């Protein structure tokens, strides 16, 4: 079976006409080394000699100079738990609107430097998303608010408190507390106390990306605004209507883990779940689906209704697509399927619920007794609020953790309404678009500076503890609430009391509260064992299908606004790590783009990079394979004006394209018309520089073939193995031989490993221009390859880091022996020896070596986290910060290896398989990456290397990589669906 892979629409079109591509055809100067300014400058041979002379004398001068005096300043009184040189881990909780993650915080000398998923939490299982990984950098964001502000002047908290409490106490004033969703039970109690104390106050929950329709549908069906827990691990058939549950929807890290669990195959049990995705733009979930149907949103809605009707017994639908096969498959998997939708439309959500009820999924794959409580928003209330603000029915507005001036569909009328209020206050992390319009602005804590708790699921409590002293004069929301309700207990005691009164009685093991508290704090989570099952009955409601589009008639295109994995709803908009993280599908970074289908692009004469105007909002277009015809997709969260130096002006803010229809914010299926502007933008793509040239680096098969023969799709591996011979003696490793196995079946391409690696190894951010020039520094990249039909391609995500070849081509060509093999099979890189010839980069067939073209630290041209003292606090002290002119690459997290080895030696034992995790392995939510000792035949990685699916990239070159890949298995059939 020969499958042709391509990495972009342009690549496919070119490969149709010619076989060879060169990577330097992207319009920039040939080598891409110099800016135009520099190119214009002339230097002569004499200049060169002058430079030689100068450097010689400079070197001589430097040699006779005195070395600087270094100070060693110990603690005055050493805190007991802090030991310089030893990392401490604290379990905590990240809660940011609807996003929840139970995390472990690694601190060195008292500063958090890395976030890891908490393996004690069944929601994260040690994994995390890219944004959770990157959240530690937000702590050290120089653009964050460092003190409270009153009318644009630095102020004191006392004055803010006085003003807020004065406003709340006014009897004739209608005050509104506007917050994002907050699932902290203690905070909710405080809010209740606040509302009780100040009766004129109302609380409204607003989320930039709202789950209101799901909540309301469940409210109608089950009597409370909750979201059931989706047990993808139990599901055999998943049908998703535009819900990107692997990328951004509700709790992607949790769902990705469960999803991957249901798709692990062994020769003994060749069975996996089947995933069908209906969507317009290609999402992360869609790219992993076994079958992806590209439809524009209005058609998806129709498909949902039609599916329901067919399940109910109707035989015919007016859709061009016949939903009968899907209905049959669902019926065949009654109780074992999941149907879900990410469309914020009450009718769709009610229908989805009705379908799930019809299929008996509640109680099996959908856990309604232990539901998610993270989302609480109410779009209608928010819309009403804005009307009331404009009608002067509201006098005071106090906001926390929300930024409607930036991210609300009606942000203009919100801004207008805000001007009419007597009193506006916001507790904000940065002087964002909303806060800068408020009279009183409180500076909010980062979650790593605060105490707190969360109840993500009904039976899942978790605690947040501070991992660092407050860096600035900031306060958490809880601390503010306590002040405002006039409580004299400090926040910590309040939290403890809450847990004593409300949480402790949910368990029986610990009778002493202190013991219970310590245990919960240590593990970060407390899970209630739910014994008695409350039978929550499904109440059917009448479904009204409204196919007729009432107001939106103009325009030929439907635009969908989605959250991309890096920006989400835009809260972390000033995070340079996330800004540079390539989108898993388009591979573009530093901005958002309108994805347009190849057919539409051709018809409209649009090329990738052309800036188009959609209802007045301009952004470059990308021709996206698999985009539904007649639809456009663009990511939310970009186009900030006031988020900070890195994020301001990157991309376009498209929240204004959203509509409010039927009382819900509608993010998808908005009818628009497009207009080319005639301008162009060079998009910063991270992958398309390189070409695959049809080398067989991806092995894939389908489940039927796999069941017949586990080697299916991987036949080449055996062939090559037999052909490869060498004259040299086989390399022997006395001790461990480190290796890594990556399961292409489990890898969903979420990018968590990329950020984890960046945090762990002090990888520099280089900015848009340099990404465009193929100089991104990421040590691990996730290549995304398409195959098959350009209108609905199949996708493979392929993480590539240094393959640590035992017969490494790079090692042979280094003139100064700066890169060579070590005793444990690692291709090591000695930065201080490297003179920057880049021969190794040239000779590496995997393109994993990175060159430091510039100094990325303390350089105003790269004004990211490494250019200010605060941002540098995130650097890992165990990894060197590389300077200009040296090559760097994945080291298999050598610092972690050394650390684990030392720990084992100190405890007089061998390393336990699985205890040593590289950063990418640790962060992976689907456990696709396994790291370990290949010399230990019992280790997981050795077993995976013996697996029938194991192969290596370009193994025909006899590079003997220490990284193995497992063939991707798709749950597809060659024939039509049965």
């Amino acid at each position, binding site marked *: 079976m020969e499958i042709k892979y391509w990495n972009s629409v342009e690549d496919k079109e070119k490969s149709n006409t010619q076989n060879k591509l060169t990577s330097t055809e992207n319009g920039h100067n040939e080598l891409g080394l110099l800016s135009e300014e520099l190119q214009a400058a002339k230097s002569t041979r004499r200049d060169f000699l002058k430079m030689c002379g100068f450097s010689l004398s400079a070197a001589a001068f430097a040699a006779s100079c005195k070395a600087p*005096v270094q*100070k*060693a300043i*110990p603690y*005055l009184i050493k805190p007991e738990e802090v030991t310089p040189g030893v990392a401490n881990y604290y379990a905590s909780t990240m809660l940011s609107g609807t996003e929840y993650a139970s995390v472990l915080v690694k601190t060195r000398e008292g500063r958090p430097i890395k976030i890891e998923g908490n393996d004690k939490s069944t929601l994260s299982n040690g994994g995390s998303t890219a944004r959770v990984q990157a959240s530690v950098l937000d702590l050290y964001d120089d653009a964050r608010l460092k003190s409270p502000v009153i009318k644009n002047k630095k102020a004191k908290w006392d004055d803010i408190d006085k003003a807020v409490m004065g406003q709340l106490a006014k009897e004739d004033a209608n005050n509104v507390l506007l917050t994002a969703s907050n699932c902290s039970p203690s905070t909710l109690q405080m809010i209740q106390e606040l509302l009780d104390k100040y009766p004129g106050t109302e609380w409204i929950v607003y989320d930039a990306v709202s789950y209101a329709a799901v909540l309301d549908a469940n409210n109608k069906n089950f009597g409370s605004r909750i979201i059931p827990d989706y047990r993808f691990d139990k599901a055999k058939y998943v049908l998703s209507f535009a819900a990107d549950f692997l990328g951004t929807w509700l709790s992607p890290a949790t769902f990705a883990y469960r999803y991957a669990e249901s798709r692990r195959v062994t020769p003994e049990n060749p069975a996996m779940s089947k995933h069908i995705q209906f969507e317009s733009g290609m999402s992360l979930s869609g790219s992993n689906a076994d079958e992806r149907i590209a439809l524009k949103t209005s058609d998806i809605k129709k498909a949902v209704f039609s599916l329901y009707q067919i399940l109910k017994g109707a035989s015919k639908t007016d859709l061009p697509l016949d939903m009968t096969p899907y209905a049959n498959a669902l019926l065949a998997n009654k109780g074992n399927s999941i149907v879900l939708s990410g469309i914020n439309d009450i009718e769709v959500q009610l229908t989805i619920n009705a379908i799930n009820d019809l299929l008996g999924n509640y109680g099996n794959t959908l856990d309604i007794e232990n539901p998610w409580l993270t989302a609480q928003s109410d779009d209608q209330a928010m819309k009403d609020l804005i009307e009331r603000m404009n009608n002067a029915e509201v006098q005071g507005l106090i906001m926390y953790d929300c930024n409607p001036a930036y991210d609300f569909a009606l942000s203009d009328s919100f801004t207008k309404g805000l001007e009419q209020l007597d009193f506006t206050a916001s507790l904000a992390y940065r002087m964002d678009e909303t806060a800068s319009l408020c009279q009183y602005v409180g500076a909010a804590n980062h979650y790593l500076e605060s105490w707190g708790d969360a109840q993500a699921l009904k039976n899942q409590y978790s605690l947040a503890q501070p991992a660092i002293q407050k860096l600035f004069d900031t306060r958490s929301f809880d601390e503010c609430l306590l002040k405002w309700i006039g409580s004299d207990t400090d926040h910590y005691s309040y939290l403890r009391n809450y847990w004593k009164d409300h949480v402790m009685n949910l368990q029986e093991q610990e009778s002493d509260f202190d013991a219970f508290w310590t245990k919960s704090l240590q593990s970060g989570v407390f899970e209630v064992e739910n014994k008695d099952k409350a039978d929550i009955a499904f109440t059917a409601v009448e479904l009204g299908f409204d196919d007729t589009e009432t107001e939106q008639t103009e325009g030929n295109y439907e635009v969908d606004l989605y959250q991309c994995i890096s920006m989400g709803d835009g809260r972390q908009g000033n995070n340079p790590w996330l800004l540079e993280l390539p989108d898993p599908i388009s591979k573009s970074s530093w901005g958002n783009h309108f994805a347009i289908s190849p057919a539409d692009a051709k018809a409209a004469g649009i090329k990738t990079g052309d800036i188009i105007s959609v209802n007045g909002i301009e952004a470059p277009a990308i021709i996206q394979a698999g985009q539904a015809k007649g639809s456009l997709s663009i990511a939310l969260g970009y186009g900030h004006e006031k988020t900070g130096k890195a994020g301001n002006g990157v991309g376009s803010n498209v929240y204004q394209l959203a509509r409010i229809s039927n009382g819900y914010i509608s993010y998808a299926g908005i009818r628009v018309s497009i207009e080319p502007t005639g301008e162009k933008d060079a998009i910063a793509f991270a992958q398309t520089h390189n070409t695959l040239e049809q080398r067989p680096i991806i092995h894939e098969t389908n489940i039927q073939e796999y069941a017949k023969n586990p080697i299916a799709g991987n036949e080449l591996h055996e062939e090559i193995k037999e052909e490869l011979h060498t004259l040299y003696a086989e390399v022997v490793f006395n001790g461990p031989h480190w290796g890594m196995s990556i399961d292409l079946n489990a890898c969903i391409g979420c990018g968590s490993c990329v950020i984890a690696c960046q945090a762990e190894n002090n990888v520099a951010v280089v900015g848009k221009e340099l990404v465009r020039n193929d100089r991104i520094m990421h040590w691990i990249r996730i290549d995304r390859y398409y195959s098959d039909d350009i209108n609905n391609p199949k996708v493979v995500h392929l993480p590539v880091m240094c393959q640590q070849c035992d017969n490494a081509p790079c090692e042979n060509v280094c003139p100064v022996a700066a890169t060579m093999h*070590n*005793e444990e099979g690692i291709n090591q890189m*000695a930065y201080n020896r490297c003179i920057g010839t880049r021969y190794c980069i040239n000779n590496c067939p995997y393109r994993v070596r990175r060159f430091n073209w510039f100094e990325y630290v303390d350089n105003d041209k790269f004004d990211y986290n490494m250019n200010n003292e605060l941002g540098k606090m995130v650097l890992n002290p165990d990894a060197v910060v590389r300077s200009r002119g040296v090559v760097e690459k994945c080291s298999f997290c050598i610092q972690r290896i*050394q650390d684990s080895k030392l720990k084992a030696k100190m405890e007089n034992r061998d390393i336990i398989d699985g205890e040593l995790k590289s950063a990418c392995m640790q962060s992976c939510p689907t456990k696709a990456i396994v790291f370990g000792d290949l010399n230990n035949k019992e280790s997981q990685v050795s077993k995976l290397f013996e697996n029938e699916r194991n192969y290596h990239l370009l193994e025909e070159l006899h590079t003997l990589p220490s990284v193995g890949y497992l063939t991707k298995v798709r749950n597809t059939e060659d024939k039509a669906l049965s």
Partner: protein
Amino acid sequence: MIKGKLKNCFAESYRLIWMFVLSLVFANAASLTLSAQDGYTLWDDNCSDCHSIGDGVYLGPDLQGINAKRPASWMLSFIKSSKTMIANGDPDAVALFEEFKKKKMPDFALSDAEIQAILAYIASQSPQATNEIDTSKPAPDDQNLNIESGNTEQNDNGSTQTTNESQNSGNTQNNVSNANSGGGVSSERLDQLEEKLNQVIAFQRNLRPTEITSSDIKKGEHLFKGKTAFEYGAASCISCHNIIPTDTFNWNPSASEIIAKFKFGSGNNIEDELSNPQTEKMKKLLLDHPLTNSEIFYLSAYIHDVSKKDLWAESPRDNKSKLAWIILVLILLSLIDLMITKVVKPRAIPTLIFLLGIVFESYVVFGAATSVGLSQGYSPDQPIKFSHKVHAGENQINCKYCHSTVEYSQTAGIPSANVCMNCHNKIKSGTHTGTYELDKLRAAVKDKKPIEWVKVHNLPDHVYYNHAQHVNVGKLDCIECHGDVAKMDRIKQVNTLSMGWCLNCHRNHEVNFDNKFYDSYKILHDKISSGDIDTVLVKDIGGEDCQSCHY
């Protein structure tokens, strides 16, 4: 001439003023048996381990403002025997006992007077007392103190006098006018006089800097450096206080350190120190050989003059470049002579100079090039004259007591000041340095300013070194890298700490191969049992890999 007379006049008046002040101080001190100063000593010896004044709860309660909270009689009996009071069921005592988790305060065999002195000291350290300036109304403290003395009068007539006085002195320390409450009319007049005198002195001091002439400074310098002898035969300053900022490990503060300490406006006064020395050494020295006032004046002038220069620390590298430059000139000269001038007749001489010079220069250049970034022999002055010889050598303190993290952390850890204070809470005077150096430690703790030690063993940033690996796992002795520290007063880098030096050890050092971690190194185990190899060296298990140390 007139100027000289005037100056004499000034010096004389100054001397008179000082004599008066001194006599006052003396008279005051003589009339007291126990003062708050003694209160401090008593406090420090008996109470400070468990109590603080204003720094929060240690083992026992914070005693700030305790005089206002509890009657003196209660305090007296509680301090003498808290156990009896608890046993007798005193409600306050029992409440305290319960509050502090049933920890009993030990009984103290202190006299009433001593306890009063302690209480007076606490009062003097409590903010009410220190900030109390308004004398028109008696402050709560005063009231309590009055009650106190009343009570003690009833209880113990014999000690009444002492109590009154101790309490007065406790107050006069901070507030002169408080003396009213107990001192009587004569002391009031004395206070007024003292205040006037203080004003006069302050006035004179303010004037002084403008009146210092360069000849005064010169005289001061001569006295300091011993070019002029002191009138009463005191040893010259330079004989103990080295004038060079570096290499002054003679235990006495160096001149530049004195200068830094007595800088104009630092609050420390060199005249006071010289006329009324505080340290034992200076006391001993100046008792028999006092300085005259003019001498003190000159010295002070000199010190103030040079105080603009700061103490500086020596840089790690010191090269012999001077000699190299001279030789280089010689080479050039010989070359010129050989080729052009041809003055020196035996041609062998310039030839020889040229050749030897080249050899020498090559040696210097090679040495300099190979030692770039190395600092063998580096031994800078430290902010505190801490002696490893005294601590690790004479007192046999284990390295790990202070460098406690050496076995499980990357860094051995420079002890934080609280570790020093574990011992120096009690040991208040150093073997060589008296209290001078230890005062710095105490000041650091008090002012919450960490001590900025100069790092001696400093590896570049691109080198990862882990103490735990070498000390805990490799079982290396500290001496192997750091030299015989127990014999060093000031720490010195003995080894080069170069990469070659590290690698030499990695190539020759045997691995502690019975660690269970190495069980998986089956090939090496097989080789040992088959007799192919005797020992496993560090290099056999990756000790020569770049990424053992560079990552």
